[in-house]
């Protein structure tokens, strides 16, 4: 446990001090505001914002998660391979610290540090909205959305972003990742086979639909459940609270599987 804690601390500090970890989300938000059409602007416009605080902050969570997680995954893609590139991996492997515990600490530390600007941005906007509209309950909904939508999605993405570059060059991983993010989250299931609206949906379809009762800004969207005529419908159970918790569990388990796979690949290379 000490190893996990120690590597968590140094990985967190190392990553949180990287300028790009803060500059990339900041630039993304500036572009997001400039392009318009998002809640970043509409939250403060009485004519455009959703009437309910819950819809406003959960919609904000969805938009910030959809956009900033792309930079999050790209920034994390060099964390694990970096040890090999800088040739410090053999030195770390020679220490008594177990490689699995070091990997867990690195994963949690780098993930927490890279997620910090996203959380700060989200609560910054949600807080400004709560003050602007005198709706303190917005904080509660923001915390709930963070816990059931953003955090599971980020944990899932981070595990693959750390480990896939062990077998695929990091720049290529970034290309494939953003392609996956669009395909697996935004493509309609009746257009082509996709993980969108399944329990493997890092944008959080089931928790959004069931746990947060969010159906889009205009209240007409469905985020989870079977789609007539679509493939992979066996991964789309009816939206119930149990299915939503299952969806969160599946994301976390897949993250653990990815980390275990990465650990196995590294162990084979050391041998």
């Amino acid at each position: 446990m000490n190893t996990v804690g120690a590597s968590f601390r140094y990985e967190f500090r190392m990553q949180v001090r990287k300028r790009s970890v803060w500059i990339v989300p900041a630039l993304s938000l500036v572009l997001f505001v400039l392009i318009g059409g998002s809640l970043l602007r509409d939250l403060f416009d009485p004519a455009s914002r959703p009437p309910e605080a819950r819809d406003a902050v959960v919609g904000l969570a969805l938009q910030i998660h959809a956009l900033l997680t792309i930079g999050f995954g790209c920034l994390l893609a060099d964390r694990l391979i970096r040890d090999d590139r800088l040739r410090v991996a053999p030195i770390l492997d020679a220490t008594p610290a177990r490689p699995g515990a070091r990997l867990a600490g690195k994963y949690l530390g780098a993930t927490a540090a890279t997620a910090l600007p996203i959380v700060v941005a989200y609560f910054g906007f949600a807080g400004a909205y709560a003050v602007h509209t005198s709706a303190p309950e917005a904080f509660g909904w923001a915390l709930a959305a963070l816990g059931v939508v953003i955090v599971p999605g980020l944990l899932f993405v981070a595990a693959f972003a750390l480990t896939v570059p062990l077998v695929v060059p990091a720049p290529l991983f970034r290309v494939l990742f953003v392609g996956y993010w669009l395909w697996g989250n935004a493509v309609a299931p009746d257009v082509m086979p996709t993980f969108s609206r399944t329990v493997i949906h890092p944008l959080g379809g089931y928790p959004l639909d069931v746990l947060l009762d969010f159906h889009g800004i205009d209240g007409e969207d469905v985020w989870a459940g079977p789609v007539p005529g679509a493939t992979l419908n066996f991964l789309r159970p009816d939206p119930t609270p149990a299915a939503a918790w299952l969806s969160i569990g599946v994301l976390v388990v897949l993250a653990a599987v990815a980390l275990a796979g990465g650990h196995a690949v590294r162990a084979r290379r050391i041998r």
Partner: protein
Amino acid sequence: MRPLTLWRYEARRAGWAALLGPPLAVALGVVAAWANPLPGETTTARILLGALEMAIPLAAGVACGSLTGRDPAVEIQLTAATSYRATLLRRMAVTLAWTAVIAVLTAAVLIATGWWARWPENHGPVAGQLTWLAPTLGLSGLGFAAGAVFRSPAAAGALVTTVWALQQFFGDAAQQNVAGRLLYLFATTRGAVPGDWAANRLTLLAVAAGFVALALVVLGHSERLIGEEDE
């Protein structure tokens, strides 16, 4: 060093992502078109042209963003007679040339098989090549400049992918004003206001030139390249 040897070396330094990215992008686009069950050849043609306009520029943009910061001993590069920025520009040229080979071959196959003509907004076989050329150069210029400024392939890749995804997710909002329409990457397959297409393509080319110029200015400051790395 013979010139051909030099170019081969630069191609290797550009990395596997530059080599594998464009063909993989086309392959995934073809798979997506094949997997699309919607009736009508127009939709399939749109996805196939989308591989040219969306997937190839993304691969090239991220590859160009990964050029700076790859050399393990950049101090040696800075002592060479050839300036380091000329070396990086050569690697960008290699990356883009390979991307162009893949894109032109793909376009030729689409034209020969008739899929090109099935998308109504194809703009012909010659001017229509701007479908991939303009967004490829635009995103590659952005990636190259971001790589030069941040000296971090991770940051440059993050920025390129975010800009690309932002225009995918918020395509309608991006086209609400003139600036957004002129800078829209996917004007061929996701629509442009009639008459805006040529202006959009030329704007992207001009923006690419601006980004490359910015990168060359930034890369001219050698001390930045040997300073503290953003690891």
